[in-house]
């Protein structure tokens, strides 16, 4: 049996193996070498690979991005880590104007093999400025590759692929995936930076999801199965571009679509998937697709509102029933916890 690792352990192993494999790999970020090591993903790396290659940084998100770019064009393969995409908002200029464009705007003579890890999504009471999911921003910008691994296998495989890729890669990790366990091989394998994957076969409705919402979608598929509906779950995984082939093949079967994303629906991944579905699968669509994503509201901090703000498996399953025009009843969720603000009771921070 293949070894089981948690998502954060898979990331940690990817860093270790990359650092061991290629002396040009560097890891930089605020708190990277610290005692908590970016939720465990970079812990101990400085001890193992030395203070030159694994560095802590000032809180200077903008310049650190340019600095990583400068090292990258000199042959380094830096991994830059932001504890929150909200902090990385300070670095949009070097990410968008510079890193994304240096290959193109210098006529192909420059390469910027830069990987930027950013943590997205809800933590626990993180509120308006520590919980955003801005994947559609990055995916809108030509020159960036954007991935959102859901399973530990892809977390490791995509990080390796990202670091070895000569393009800047935006690598988005949802905070609630860190404790997720799954099979992870040892050694330097890669997961592709393009293409979705069908994680659950079904015939009635297609649920296309990203990141943590893929986990909710798999739960939704169970709820739907109990209600007699067969759902196909696609882990979109890679956003540049949305995998129209996989989506169209699934819609050819099901004719019904639910899109679930961790970010705001408007102008987000949800909209893009809808557009791709129209373009690639219009004749197959039997009903208006449904979306399950964040409302157009900043994140409230209090759990009383956060619980209402974040959709979950039940919402996805209900959306599937809605697009199918079905009045089937879903199993009632077990009301086991007062608040839904942690992924599971084992989630104890740091947040």
């Amino acid at each position, binding site marked *: 049996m293949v070894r089981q690792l948690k998502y954060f352990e898979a990331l940690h192993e990817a860093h270790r193996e990359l650092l061991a494999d290629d002396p040009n790999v560097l890891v930089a970020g605020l708190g990277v070498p610290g005692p908590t090591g970016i939720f465990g993903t970079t812990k101990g790396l400085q001890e193992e690979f030395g203070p030159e290659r694994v*560095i802590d*940084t000032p809180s*200077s998100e903008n310049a650190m991005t340019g600095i990583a770019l400068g090292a990258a064009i000199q042959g380094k393969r830096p991994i830059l880590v932001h504890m929150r995409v909200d902090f990385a908002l300070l670095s949009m200029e070097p990410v968008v104007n510079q890193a994304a464009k240096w290959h193109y705007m210098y006529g192909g003579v420059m390469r910027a093999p830069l990987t930027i890890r950013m943590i997205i999504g809800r*933590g*626990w009471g993180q509120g308006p400025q520590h919980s955003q999911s801005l994947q559609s921003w990055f995916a809108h910008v030509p020159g960036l590759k954007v991935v959102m691994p859901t399973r530990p296998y892809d977390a490791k495989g995509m990080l390796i692929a990202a670091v070895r890729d000569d393009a800047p890669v935006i690598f988005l990790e949802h905070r609630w995936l860190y404790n997720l366990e799954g099979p992870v091989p040892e050694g330097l394998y890669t997961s592709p930076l393009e293409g979705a994957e069908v994680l659950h076969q079904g015939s009635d409705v297609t649920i296309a999801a990203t990141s943590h919402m893929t986990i909710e979608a798999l739960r939704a598929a169970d709820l739907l199965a109990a209600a007699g509906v067969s759902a196909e779950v696609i882990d979109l995984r890679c956003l540049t571009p949305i995998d129209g082939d996989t989506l169209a093949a699934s819609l050819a079967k099901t004719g019904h679509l639910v899109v679930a994303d961790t970010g705001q629906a408007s102008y987000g991944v949800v909209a893009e998937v809808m557009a791709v579905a129209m373009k690639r699968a219009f004749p197959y669509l039997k009903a208006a697709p449904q979306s399950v994503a964040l409302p157009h509201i900043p994140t409230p901090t209090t759990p009383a509102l956060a619980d209402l703000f974040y959709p979950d498996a039940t919402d996805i399953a209900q959306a599937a029933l809605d697009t199918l025009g079905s009045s089937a009843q879903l199993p009632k969720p077990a009301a086991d916890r007062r608040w839904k603000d942690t992924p599971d009771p084992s989630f104890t*921070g740091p*947040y």
Partner: protein
Amino acid sequence: MTTQQKDIRAAAVLPDAKTRLAVLESMIRVRLAEEAIAALYGEGEIRCPTHLCIGQEAVAAGISVLLSRDDLVFSGHRSHGHYLAKGGDMNAMFAELYGRVTGCARGKGGSQHLVDLACGFMGAAPILSSTISVGVGSAWAAKLDRRDQVSIVYFGDGATEEGTFHEALNFASVHKLPVIFVCENNLYSVHSAMDIRQPEGRPIALLGTAHGMPSVTCDGNDADVVHAHAAEAVARARAGEGPSFIECMTYRWMEHCGPGDDIPLGYRTAEELADWRIRDPLAIYRDRLAAAGELGAAAEADLMKKARDEVAAAVAFAKASPYPEAAELSEHVFPV
């Protein structure tokens, strides 16, 4: 004021006995509130990241007594002390931490987003350095309106590594705005010490100097010292002479975020913490006032009891308050 000048210049600017009692009271209130939060946090009812300021109380206490209600304060993630010292409503703060609709931000903000317009506490936000420019903009408005109003911006040593910090100081200097930049240098940014983040031996105050404003590094655990420098800065601001920069050397006792002790993490030593605990800003000040005959045992007990009661009442208020209704979720996205 010049950079590097570490001590207080003039006994003349020592606050009078009444003011000093106010300073002490302010420190006591903050200390007890923070201790209460630490004690209650484990109950799991405060469900948001919470950054305590125990050990750093002298800064806001020494400054706030100089301010009127019309003066404004801006802060960052570690803001409870700044809020309370400026006169922020303690009930509303606890309710905010508890996510209740009676919170100062109706529960929507949590510990990291305190606000109380009634006392001029104009908002705190945890994106490093980001409220610095907002405070400068506030001072700009005050100057345009010829208001006798000073804006204070509090931030940590780590925040000075953000570029926007410099942009804000530059603008304030060019326009000679009535704003005071207060850097609480507690030697750490989360778990990272100064040396990996900033040039060795360069006081942060030198950055203020470089932006053309009077700047000083001082003992942030001595409320009188802070008060003296702030008095000068406030006077400058009110006289239309422009911004000042005060770097206050201090230390945080608790973990970066949360109610605990982080010595086991190993990024700082127990000895270092112990040394700084000896330099407890509250104990030093209480002893000093007692020695000066400005504080008797009864008066001290009174202050303690009053603060303890206030905190207990605030906790009770928070716990008894309702959570926001579902309809609140979509309210306040846009002003109506």
